[in-house]
């Protein structure tokens, strides 16, 4: 058993007065890759956002311990400084702010001991660009503005490479990607994985897990971890869908997806 990086205990989270996470437990060790699978509306993105401190995601009970410290009181930037990173499912467009300027500001904020001037940062960034085989011109454009779906996801991985987090949460990094882009993006994640970083892969489908091999697979349903297992759990879900497991647990996938649709519409 590796050193514990993240320990979540009985976590309850409300969004706009509705309880989305209903007592979630999860332990992630240093260097481990965990997949969190689940149908739409099961609370996967809520988990990602509450870990990164998004406003509006209220912890009503339970604990989130990162390296043994409760992170609930920390603002999003303080969590990032502590080494937590989220690759967004829908990366935000920020008009007029170039990727390189944004990343240098972020790097210098996280590394007060290693302030990089524009030229030095450019060289450092180029190494990451080369490592991930990303088109250089991307970093001179405004953050995510006019980016294709694949470019947005690549930009997320580039940010992860630059900020080198200790805990990386990838929220549906596979969504909206064709097979080539998926291979490229997951190749990037594999290059950044290692004994120093814990990775949480949030995904709806098993297909991502063919490219990034998880140590543990969890199924999130009804706001908590319904089952955990090895890779065979992902294969079972791929073969049988979520319905079989839901029935076993006395939950209805239809109900869960209904909630997701309502949330999407609101």
């Amino acid at each position, binding site marked *: 058993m590796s050193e514990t990086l993240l320990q979540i205990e009985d976590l309850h989270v409300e969004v706009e007065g509705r309880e989305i996470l209903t007592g979630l437990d999860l332990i992630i060790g240093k260097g481990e890759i965990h997949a969190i699978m689940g149908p739409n509306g099961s609370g996967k993105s809520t988990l990602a956002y509450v870990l*990164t*401190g*998004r*406003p509006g995601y209220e912890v009503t009970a339970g604990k989130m311990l990162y390296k043994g410290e409760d992170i609930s009181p920390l*603002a*999003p*930037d303080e*969590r*990032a*400084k502590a080494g937590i*990173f*989220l690759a*967004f499912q829908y*990366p*935000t467009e*920020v*008009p*007029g*702010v170039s990727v390189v*300027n*944004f*990343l240098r*500001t*972020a790097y210098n*904020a*996280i590394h007060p001991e290693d302030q990089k001037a524009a030229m030095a940062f450019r060289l450092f960034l180029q190494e990451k660009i080369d490592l991930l085989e990303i088109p250089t011109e991307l970093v001179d454009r*405004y*953050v995510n503005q006019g980016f294709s779906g694949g470019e947005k996801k690549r930009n997320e991985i580039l*940010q992860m490479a630059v*900020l080198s987090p200790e805990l990386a949460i990838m929220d549906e990094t596979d969504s909206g990607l064709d097979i080539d882009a998926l291979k490229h993006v997951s190749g990037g994640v594999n290059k950044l994985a290692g004994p120093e970083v814990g990775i949480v892969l949030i995904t709806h489908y098993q297909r991502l897990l063919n490219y990034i091999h998880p140590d543990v697979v969890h199924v999130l349903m009804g706001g908590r971890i319904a089952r955990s297992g090895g890779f065979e759990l992902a294969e079972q879900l791929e073969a049988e869908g979520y319905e079989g497991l839901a029935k076993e647990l006395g939950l209805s996938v239809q109900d869960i997806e209904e909630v997701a649709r309502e949330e999407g519409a609101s």
Partner: protein
Amino acid sequence: MPDKLNREAAERLSRALHEPSWLVERRMAAFDVFEKLEPPDPKGEEWRYTDVRRFDFDRFDAPVPTEGVPELSPEAAARGVIVTDLWSAARDHPELLEEHFFTEVPIQEHKFTALHGAFLSDGVLVYVPRGVEVEMPLSIARRMAGGGSVFPHTTVVVDEQASLTFVDRFGSEDLSEPSLCASVVEVEARRGATVNYISLQQWGRSVHHFQTQRFTGHRDSTVRSLAVNLGSAFARTQVESVLKGEGSFSEMLGLYFADSEQHFAQRTLQSHNAAHTTSDLLYKGALKERSRSEYSGLIKVLRGAQGTDAYQANRNLLLSEDSMARSIPQLEIEANEVRCTHGATVSPVEEEHLFYLMSRGIDRVTAQKLVVFGFFGDVLDRIRVAEVREGLANAIAAKVEGGQSLEVAA
């Protein structure tokens, strides 16, 4: 006790500045017009939302004459460029002054131009002869004492195929007593000339600032203007480009950032009087705390101005729930072969953007700064004087950081 803004004060100014009789007559005529004119009606388009009907002129001391003109390089002086204060001009270049002084902006235009004419105390005349390109920007700093008033006048004439950049700076410390500035700017670009005029309003917080800028573009000329409002308690800036000559072009940029209780009102005119004229206007403003701004812009295309291409955009970024921006575009088109495009937006800083930036380790204020810089980016990129661009970047950063804490609209 210093004089208030009365007839005796105007007469005393004339004497102190040793004005020739025609200037004295003009000044006193302006005073009569000032006394006679009603304040502008806020029901009209031009002064809508700027109600000055109860504006109290007795609060302000009469101005103290200011001397000082921008420094001119010896090379430019040798090539016949004239930079002089209005009173030296009255002595040394009387024809030039009579021909151009108060011609583009008439004294009787409104109460504040008449006031300006009556108490003119700080004026500069610039003439660039035919074919002379002045490379170094000319710059002048206008100052003011608390409780006082200042009436700066800028007349710029750039002759055929000549070029000039002029930077008008209006700045003071934060003053404890209400103070007044009423300024008039007249710029003429003759055939094929290029003029770049920048006004930087960074007065202290107690100043009321009224400014009328008018640009006249003759055939194939280029007139670029930038109007910046950052300081003062209240500022009204009226910027008008009148394209009289075929093929003339005007770029009109505006940048404003208001905080606390500041109130900025801006009026623009793009007047296309001749065929194949082009105007390109972009005014962008950010508003913080309880500040507010109004923008009202008219594109006017006269009969016969075929082939006009006019563009107008006003964008506002709200950094607090209590700030407010209004934007009113207007079109008056009498020609039939024209292309006119206008657009206006008022939008809050998106919490979504801030969260994304913060999730990368950037603190909230820095994230706001990035968003605000991103917002102003396309205006800043178009400012051709590096020193002005950098100064503004610093001023914008200070505005984001300064004052009361930022609450951002949800």
